[in-house]
């Protein structure tokens, strides 16, 4: 692989350097040449490194939910993009949110590049399923006093991860961004460059598919057997 240092040089190109009116704190900080000896101010490589290092665990967790095993690749792409556009970060206090948005952008572009056509799941198909009712009817944990909660608590972190990866990306992404990462639906629509109505419809289908897949996974992997025997 080509060394990254060869691909991108520091200091940043002029077009990426911050302006005094955006994110620097004070006029003196705007002049990089004056700051040659100050490696800690906003916009310096050190500031970028600090933000990037702090953000890596959170970005990785988010990427794992979005793309599974390709998470490290996606975070790398995000870090390189963030490095190139660090000068556009207006509020250093909102650095993590800024990085997360870059990660989602990279994810969206990756999807487009792969150009996989995914057909929408008909809403009637998913609406018929209710995990709540299925659990009540099948009663897979006969000794449980709180069946529905205990069912969910049977899933470990890796199980949830596996269930999420069963969902087509177009449904997984809004679900992860809304309910795991806390983005608003409007923000998701903006980041994924999709109409709000499309995002809402996919969220609905994604939730129902997630319920269906939780149940299917539990049955296929005998997840509940050990718990039921306890």
């Amino acid at each position, binding site marked *: 692989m080509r060394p990254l240092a060869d691909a991108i040089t520091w200091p940043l190109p002029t077009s990426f350097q911050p302006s005094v009116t955006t994110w620097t704190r004070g006029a003196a900080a705007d002049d990089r040449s004056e700051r040659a000896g100050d490696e800690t101010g906003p916009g310096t490589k050190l500031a970028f490194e600090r933000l*990037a290092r702090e953000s890596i*665990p959170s970005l990785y967790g*988010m990427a794992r939910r979005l793309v599974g095993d390709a998470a*490290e690749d996606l975070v790398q792409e995000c870090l390189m993009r963030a490095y190139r556009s660090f000068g556009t970060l207006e509020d250093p206090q909102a650095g993590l949110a800024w990085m997360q948005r870059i990660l989602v952008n990279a994810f969206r572009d990756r999807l487009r590049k792969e150009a996989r056509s995914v057909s929408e799941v008909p809403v009637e198909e998913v609406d018929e399923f*209710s995990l709540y009712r299925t659990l009540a009817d099948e009663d897979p944990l006969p000794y449980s006093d709180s069946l529905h909660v205990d069912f969910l608590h049977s899933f470990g*972190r890796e199980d949830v991860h596996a269930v999420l990866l069963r969902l087509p990306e177009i449904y997984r992404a809004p679900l992860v961004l809304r*309910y*795991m990462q806390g983005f608003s*639906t409007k923000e998701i629509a903006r980041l994924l460059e999709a109409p709000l109505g499309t995002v809402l419809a996919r969220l609905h289908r994604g939730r129902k598919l997630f319920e269906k897949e939780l149940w299917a996974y539990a049955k296929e992997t005998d997840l509940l057997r050990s718990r039921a025997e306890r």
Partner: protein
Amino acid sequence: MTERMIPCSEAVRQLWDYLDQRLTAREQADLEGHLAFCRRCCGELEFAKELQRFLASHGAEEIPPDVKEHLERLVDDL
């Protein structure tokens, strides 16, 4: 506002939007009218809340040390 009687299928379809406060005043009144007498849909609502908590609690994930180290090295090399 007089609420409209809605069937369980419609009520269940609206539960997550209700929790996300995305229903219109009219839709909210209809749904709450339904929930006032339908025990099963109240159960569905509680389960929807539980599922939201479940999803929120699984958002974070420990990063493996070798991956973290690799990504930090990449930051240093940029």
